[in-house]
């Protein structure tokens, strides 16, 4: 199993897809953080409460990294179906279950890497953007620190879900489209339309974890349980498909 893990680690870091996705996440995070930092029009009359709120928003901007970490996870699996390397992976790994576990573990490790970068950038960006563009200093609060922790958690968990989804969809383009549409389109729409149901959707539950603050959202422990449920359910479906379907 150790050899399979090392090989999957090599795969994860081979090529540039992880760098492109990490870079894309950073670029997106910078853009959104900049937007929040420049949102205060009258900086002369800003209160401590406003400074704290802007700081928290700039930190929260980095939750966008979870989209990119999820995409990495999905491409890490579905990309092998796209290139036809999945057959060789199954043959050389010593079994489908072993390959599934190795991809899940390595995907999670990569998610932690994405999460650390996101959380680090989230804590750094108020120090850079707010004095530069808002002309006041950031106000650090407990909520701010908890938001950074939430950004780390959803980014790492996003990769787990991406890996699981990759096993279900087994098609690179389709899995990317599904993630983008769910994250940016369907789930936000459902939150507006049927919030009592939508709060149990994956990315909406994630917004509870990075303390988005909407009143209809779940508590953090409940949201973490919902996210875990989605990952376990999707992973179980993916494993069942891997175990029973022909690899052609």
């Amino acid at each position: 199993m150790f050899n399979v893990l090392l090989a999957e680690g090599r795969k994860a870091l081979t090529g540039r897809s992880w760098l492109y996705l990490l870079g894309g996440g950073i670029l997106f995070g910078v853009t959104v953080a900049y937007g929040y930092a420049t949102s205060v029009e009258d900086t002369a009359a800003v209160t401590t409460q406003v400074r704290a709120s802007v700081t928290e928003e700039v930190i929260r901007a980095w939750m966008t990294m979870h989209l990119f970490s999820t995409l990495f996870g999905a491409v890490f699996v579905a990309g092998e179906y796209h290139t036809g390397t999945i057959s060789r992976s199954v043959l050389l790994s010593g079994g489908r279950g072993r390959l599934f576990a190795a991809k899940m573990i390595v995907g999670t490790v990569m998610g932690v890497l994405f999460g650390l970068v996101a959380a680090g950038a989230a804590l750094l960006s108020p120090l850079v953007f707010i004095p530069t563009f808002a002309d006041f200093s950031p106000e650090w609060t407990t909520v701010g620190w908890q938001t950074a922790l939430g950004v780390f958690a959803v980014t790492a968990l996003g990769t787990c879900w991406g890996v699981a989804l990759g096993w279900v969809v087994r098609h690179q383009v389709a899995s990317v489209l599904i993630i983008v549409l769910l994250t940016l389109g369907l789930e936000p729409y459902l939150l507006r339309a049927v919030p009592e149901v939508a709060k149990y959707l994956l990315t909406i539950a994630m917004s509870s974890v990075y303390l988005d603050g909407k009143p209809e959202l779940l508590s953090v422990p409940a949201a973490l349980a919902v996210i875990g449920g989605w990952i376990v359910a999707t992973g179980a479906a993916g494993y069942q498909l891997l175990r029973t379907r022909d690899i052609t």
Partner: protein
Amino acid sequence: MSQDAVARFRGVTKRFGSTTAVEDLTFDVRPGRITGLLGSNGAGKTTSMRILLGLVRPTEGEATVFGAPYHRLDRAAHRVGVSMDGVNSFPTVRGHRDLRIWARMLGLPDSRVDEVLELVGLDGRSNRRVKDYSTGMRQRHALACALLADPEFLILDEPVNGLDPDGIRWLRGFLRSLADEGRTILISSHLLSEVEQTVDDVVIIQRTLRYAGPLKDLVRESGDRLEERFFELIGTETKGVVHV
């Protein structure tokens, strides 16, 4: 048939929806020999190999390697080497890097990569991306991958495709040298004249089994070349099962 067949098909049938890819295949692959799996395009050669490797599950019957289904065989990846269309390398990765990934998965040192690259004649030419290789180089790369674990049994699907005449002659000698070392080779092809110069045993399928046995028995019976016998056999609907 001998008890020590390296690969064994017993009543193997595979249906994809309403299409039957192979039907009631029963034959053995004998140890230490080169067996040619022959059939026209769509005859079921690749499907049969994928069933043998457990990538595709048979609708009926069973295929075993060294007495067990591939997925239950201990150290299967070390005992069976595979070069097959659809069992691919990473196209955007440099050749030696791709092989190092698979060597790591097998628990082999990176130095083994250099050894197999030399064996297949790609040493010094593996610093290109696999997708930029010529077809012949890609065949050699796939063969290098199959040889990584120094396997006892090689399964090669159309390995001659894309090779130039020098490459074809090289491959013929290379496979013979591997068989002389006691390895077993199952090779699929539709290039009959090439197969005739390479294999010891022949399995001919055209959805169903048409012949399985020594090449010399097949061509001696009529005095014809393999090509004539092949077309006679696939042109009939006889479902005779002949054990090697």
